[in-house]
């Protein structure tokens, strides 16, 4: 099967004018797209550009509002994922569609013909996974598997249906660089077998490396169709974002101040059956320093955040120090009073209550630290709504939060705008320590750049900043120091300039995944 597609070659999939409305909002607006046989086709776009909506229509999860889909030259409607699978479309979801309580084989069985016995499925799973270099134990429970292994289940599940087209939604965002490398090898094999791949990503480098063609989406519309190998990252970015995104300025960062955060050999037992334990975690962050903690999701990031924030205090007072004070047993509000601010990963239901207005969500993080400003009436603690609302307005204007009403519910804001508010809520206090988990996860490029700049500016002003992030590009953009968390263990810190992507990847793979090898050099 040849890669190049002449105009006379019939495309495998051809969509015309595909449109999806949610209420009056057009998530996808008249999208045209062709995918040839044996082609790796990239679908590029920012968060919220409509990529996921588009592929959900192709996989029969969402019903298109208008437009047509042709498959192998014939017009089709894809009413359900079952139908999509029958036609030969396989899907690897970004947020995996897996069942933690079930085994690998059972997970796979759910999308196969009910007449195939489970034992046979287990057997084929083992065969296929070995053939494609995606080792899996069919009888393992999903809850016990790492993120990379979970993705393998999704891929093997798709492959077992012998698909002509495999859709991968942001597959590398959860992988280490090395794991991503192996995924690319698998994709090349699929291509060599004549299968097509629709590859969704916002990572320009990898798209340029592995994709034959690219379609770029912005605000639900196609803004470009090109051969990514002939484009530069900058030209692709322009198609994706439209306007130029401000580059983050980091001149003047100097991490030489006094130590503001210190953790010494902190170990925490797992709190739930599905969480990770922290093992002898130590770190030091100075004023003016941005310490980035890299790692694959589910390696103890949330647990580290919980220990630092005091949402779950630790047993030993002295093992965590903020601005020199021992705070191990102090709760989150006590640590806020010492001058720390916190931004958790999950926006809805952790950092903010979606059903409550922004002003209430401001109070959420600051009811104690700004008691004098926001509360009155002594022990009655009567809310001073005026003061709270005007502070919320101030934050919205400083961070350029776009919202629909005066004081709308947090849940009605887009991911980027809500994240700007949540970060602004902490910056407004000028915290001397800020701990932030996945600062720009699911956030558009404009908001992401603004948030990153704000973090750097905070460090420049003399605060210590800890950024927990999965996004290596982000880490290289803002960190002065980098450490890597893996299976609840934190590596030694490295100056940002001294580490390459590859070295971080090896550390991310950690001691528990031996097949990458070579990490001993870094483990100290």
């Amino acid at each position, binding site marked *: 099967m040849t890669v190049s597609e002449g105009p006379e070659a019939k495309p495998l999939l051809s969509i015309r004018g595909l449109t999806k409305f949610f209420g009056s909002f057009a998530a996808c607006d008249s999208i045209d797209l062709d995918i040839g046989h044996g082609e790796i086709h990239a679908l590029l776009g920012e968060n919220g550009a409509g990529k996921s909506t588009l592929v959900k229509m192709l996989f029969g999860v969402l019903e298109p509002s208008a437009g047509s889909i042709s498959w192998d030259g014939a017009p089709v409607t894809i009413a359900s994922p079952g139908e999509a699978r029958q036609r030969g479309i396989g899907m690897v979801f970004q947020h995996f569609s897996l069942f933690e309580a079930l085994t690998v084989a059972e997970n796979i069985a759910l999308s196969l013909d009910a007449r195939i016995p489970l034992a046979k499925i287990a057997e084929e799973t083992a065969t296929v996974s070995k053939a494609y270099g995606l080792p899996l134990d069919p009888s393992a429970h999903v809850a016990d598997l790492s993120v990379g292994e979970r993705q393998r289940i999704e891929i093997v599940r798709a492959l077992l249906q012998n698909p002509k087209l495999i859709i991968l939604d942001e597959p590398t965002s959860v992988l280490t660089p090395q794991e991503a490398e192996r995924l690319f090898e698998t994709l090349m094999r699929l291509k060599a077998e004549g299968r097509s791949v629709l590859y969704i990503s916002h990572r320009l480098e990898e798209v340029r490396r592995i994709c034959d063609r690219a379609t770029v989406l912005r605000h639900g519309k196609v803004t470009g169709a090109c051969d990514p190998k002939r484009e530069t990252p900058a030209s692709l970015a322009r198609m994706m974002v439209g306007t130029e995104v401000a580059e983050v300025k980091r001149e003047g960062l100097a991490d030489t101040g006094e130590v503001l955060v210190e953790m010494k050999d902190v170990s925490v037992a797992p709190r739930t059956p599905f969480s990770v334990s922290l093992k002898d975690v130590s770190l030091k962050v100075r004023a003016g320093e941005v310490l980035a903690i890299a790692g694959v999701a589910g390696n103890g990031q949330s647990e580290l955040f919980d220990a630092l924030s005091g949402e779950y205090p630790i047993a030993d007072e002295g093992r965590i120090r903020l601005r020199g004070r021992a705070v191990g047993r102090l709760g989150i509000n006590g640590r806020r009073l010492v001058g720390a601010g916190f931004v958790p990963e999950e926006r809805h239901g952790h950092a903010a*209550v979606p059903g409550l207005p922004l002003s209430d969500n401001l109070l959420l993080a600051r*009811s104690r630290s700004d008691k004098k400003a926001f509360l009155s009436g002594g022990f009655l603690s*009567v809310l001073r709504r005026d003061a709270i609302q005007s502070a919320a307005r101030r934050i919205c204007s400083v961070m350029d939060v776009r919202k629909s009403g005066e004081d709308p519910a947090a849940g009605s804001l887009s991911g980027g705008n809500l994240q700007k508010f949540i970060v602004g809520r902490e910056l407004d206090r000028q915290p001397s320590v800020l701990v932030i988990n996945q600062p720009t996860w699911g956030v558009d490029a404009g908001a992401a750049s603004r948030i990153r700049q704000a973090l750097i500016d905070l460090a420049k002003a003399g605060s210590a900043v800890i950024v927990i992030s999965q996004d290596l590009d982000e880490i290289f953009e803002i960190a002065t120091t980098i450490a890597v968390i893996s299976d609840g263990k934190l590596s030694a810190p490295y100056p940002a300039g001294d580490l390459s992507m590859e070295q971080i990847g090896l550390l991310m793979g950690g001691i528990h995944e031996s097949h990458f090898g070579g990490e001993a050099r870094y483990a100290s």
Partner: protein
Amino acid sequence: MRLELQKRAQVSTLFSILSPLLALALTLVVGGIMFWALGKSPTGALYTFFVEPLLDVWSLHELVIKAAPLILIAVGLAICYRSNNWNIGAEGQFTIGAITGSILPVLYPEWHSPMILPLMLVMGMIGGALYAGIPAFLKIRCNTNEILTSLMLVYIAQLFLDWLVRGPWRDPQGYNFPQTKSFQVEAVLPEVLDSGRAHMGIVFTLLAAVLLWFMMRFMLKGFQVSVLGQSARAGRFAGFSAKNMVWFSMLLSGALAGLAGISEVSGSIGHLQPTISPGYGFTAIIVAFLGRLNPLGIVASGFVLALTYLGGEAAQLSIGISDKVSRVFQGLILFFVLSCDTLIHYRIRLIFNPSAATAEAKN
């Protein structure tokens, strides 16, 4: 044809107000159909049920007597439900409150002091609160589901009361009736007005409703209730303690149910007997939801539900329908309230033909 829900970007204020009214209207329609099916004139029966009790002073007093415990219990439950603690054992806390509140008049019938009544009320509240403290303690310490434990405790409380009034607390001069001695005058809640039986219970009730409304709307405590109820994790991030909230909401609602219990016994019955409540503790759940878990809304809905009790009695007397009809009405109201509440958060679309909907979206 299918029914599709679309999440509203903002909670609909219009439907927040309209939904309970719509639910009442639907209840009346279904109630009318039910009367018709029983062979009665729908309008006539509904009139007897819902209007006649409002027309004379005596039954207005009865209405207040029935509304007071319903509202008092329901405002407490509203705080529980708002904070995501599902106390459904108010009936038991009501019963225990009645018992502990009655200790003084039952054991010391000769004690004639103005102190006795306040003490009774306080003891009733403590009893109710302690009884609600059991499921609270079990939820916190043992992670036990409070719905089931609080409900099981209702049965136990009722059996305990039954044992008391048939056994150790039975009035020896009571011709073997299973009840205690009538309370001394000082232990009886005084009437509010000279015109009828309605007692001071309604005053406590309105006071509690206003205080809790103020708390929910203006105080940090109320804010904690809503945050912890909507997201325990966000509450932890805010530094609010979910455990303390379990204690606070359960003890508060237990104390109010206990106060309702002793008020009912002292103000309206005058002694303890095996049955002291026509299911107030359960009906209050309906009152809480019909009032949209808002203390002031609950004051209004409490009177509506009290009316169903009176209407049932009236309908039984004048048109010969069993007073069980009131329970049916109460169930219907709750069903319709819960259905109509969907409108507050979602737009409902009926789709008769999927392709037609697609065409509509194109335009």
